[in-house]
């Protein structure tokens, strides 16, 4: 058997197994999926918003923190990391409000962890919620997630991040991705396998930071903190009803930059937290499977997309041999000439088995978060978006292999394009 074909088959089986595992977890626990524990206590809360050049969203972000319903003490710490696009002026508008502490830095761009940690040191609350400046809270976000902290083993809770007003094709595909991600994150709860504490609205106990250290200089400091919680044997939970909203990249270039950072961060944290390998479902299944699916998706893209694309390109390139006189070909073209581009063969039919499983999970995800699904966004997510992500996977593996991890490197990836 062709080795590429074999890898393709193994990839398909792996991805099928991965999806079915979480689907079965959902089915066995579906009564619990939509529930978040009702809060009885309301520890004091500090919301930290690091800001760097987000003038279009920062007002909405800070206002949502101010308007956030919470039945305990609350403060909002805005750390302006030397913004130059007018964000500083917007932040100043909130400086006099009672709940707000505004800290302005003269020099910025040393990485997101710096303004975050400045906020942590100022924080007086028992719980800290970080909020990216391109994201914002729903009014009920904290009311839906604070109940988890009544379990003393819980050190962190991640919110359900939704895409705000998607407009472009890529944003529509990301909308599905995020909703699907909410579904997966909630199923991860049942095996204590959540390993990321995302920037938009993630909540952490301050005592954990005091004991185990602040946010580190890491490309994905949110993943690093999540893995640190797991490493020390605590719980990191995911709330389905604690919603936050974020603005996602509109075009390929900005998406590429974002995902390059995420995937590179994943690879580096995967190796940085080797002590988690082999422990629990996270270490025996989720972590290694995610790591395997990334490079093998490259083979999948090669076999089903890049190779036919390269063949087509080579065919078109040959036109130079006849001085680009394509008219004789065009006049004799038939519909059947396009069929090879579909690249349908027995192995692609096996891969197509992923489609019904994925479709089922996407449908369930949408029902869980009570969102409407247009066929277009699902189509984009299932049949076009994987190629985009696989190409980014290739780049991130190359970058990670060549990159020397120094403390000064991470900030370059934090600053947005």
């Amino acid at each position, binding site marked *: 058997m062709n080795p590429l074909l074999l890898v393709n088959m193994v990839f398909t*089986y792996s991805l099928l*197994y991965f999806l079915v595992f979480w689907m079965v977890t959902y089915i066995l626990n579906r009564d619990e999926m939509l529930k978040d524990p009702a809060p009885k206590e309301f520890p004091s809360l500090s919301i930290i918003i690091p800001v760097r050049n987000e003038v279009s969203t920062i007002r909405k972000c800070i206002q949502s923190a101010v308007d956030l319903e919470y039945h305990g003490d609350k403060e909002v710490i805005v750390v302006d990391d030397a913004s130059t696009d007018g964000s500083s002026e917007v932040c100043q508008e909130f400086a006099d409000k009672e709940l707000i502490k505004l800290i302005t830095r003269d020099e910025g761009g040393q990485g997101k962890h710096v303004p975050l940690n400045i906020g942590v040191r100022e924080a007086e609350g028992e719980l800290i919620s970080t909020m990216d400046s391109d994201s914002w809270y729903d009014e009920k976000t904290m009311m839906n997630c604070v109940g988890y902290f009544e379990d003393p083993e819980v050190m962190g809770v991640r919110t359900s991040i939704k895409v705000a007003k998607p407009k472009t094709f890529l944003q529509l595909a990301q909308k599905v991705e995020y909703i699907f991600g909410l579904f997966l994150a909630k199923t991860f709860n049942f095996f204590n396998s959540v390993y990321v504490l995302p920037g938009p609205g993630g909540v952490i106990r301050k005592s954990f930071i005091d004991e185990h250290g602040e946010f580190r200089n890491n490309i994905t400091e949110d993943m690093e903190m999540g893995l640190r919680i797991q490493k020390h044997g605590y719980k990191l939970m995911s709330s389905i009803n604690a919603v936050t909203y974020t603005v996602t990249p509109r075009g390929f270039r900005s998406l590429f930059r974002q995902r390059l950072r995420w995937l590179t961060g994943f690879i580096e944290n995967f190796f940085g937290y080797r002590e988690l390998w082999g422990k629990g479902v996270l270490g025996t299944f989720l972590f290694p499977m995610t790591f395997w699916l990334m490079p093998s998706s490259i083979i999948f893209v090669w076999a089903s997309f890049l190779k036919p694309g390269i063949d087509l390109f080579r065919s078109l390139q*040959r036109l130079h*041999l*006849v001085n680009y006189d394509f008219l*004789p*070909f065009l006049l004799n073209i038939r519909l059947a000439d396009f069929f090879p581009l579909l*690249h349908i063969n027995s192995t692609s*039919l096996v891969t197509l*088995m992923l489609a019904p499983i994925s479709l089922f999970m996407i449908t369930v995800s949408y029902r869980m978060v009570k969102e409407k699904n247009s066929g277009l966004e699902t189509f984009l997510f299932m049949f076009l978006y994987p190629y985009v992500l696989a190409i980014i996977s290739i780049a991130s593996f190359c970058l990670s292999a060549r990159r020397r991890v120094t403390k000064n490197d991470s900030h370059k990836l934090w600053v947005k394009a």
Partner: protein
Amino acid sequence: MKQGIKVHAITLVITTAVFLLGVFLGMNFEQGKTSYVESHYDDLKRMVSNTELEFYFIQTLQSHMPCDYFVEESYDLTLEADRLAKKLDDYESNQGFNDPDWLSLKKDYTISLIKNWIFVEKIRRECSANYTTILYFYDSGCRSACEDLSFYLSYFKNRDKKLMVYALQSDLDMQIMELINGAYNVTEIPSIVVNGHDKFTNLSTRSEIESALCSSENALDFC
């Protein structure tokens, strides 16, 4: 822990079942493709046999040779052979599980193609038909040179329908291929034989190929 094992067990069963269903569907699809191409091959074989029989009948029992009719048949046969060749090429490049079946089909197709060429050549000579036949020899190891020559021949064929190209895989393990290779002393790949008698090798540029094709006694439109 217990739920973990339970979930893994159920997942293993479901995943394997779905995967095997995909494999089963894939193999059926491959079989369907083979059957589809085989049915087209059967059509071609029938066409060739039918036309050969018509020609034999005319030659044996009739005095008048309906050349117009047979020239038209030649064009139809070659067109059908060409379509089948494309299907075989496309499916070969997208092969899944059943390689040996394709090889067997390809050999059968090659026999029909050669019969087709012999008939078309016979008509060309007996009826002084104004088309030109090209035997194009390639092999499985030939890449760039064969792909380029194949491209040129497709281009010229699209420019003038009177150019009839028959692509033969020189290294196919068949006695008829050995005979033809020997008859035309095919030692270099790629090679072409124009109208069954003029052999050309080392054709790499457009002008060389055009010159070879235009050496035919029948004028092609692009000459």
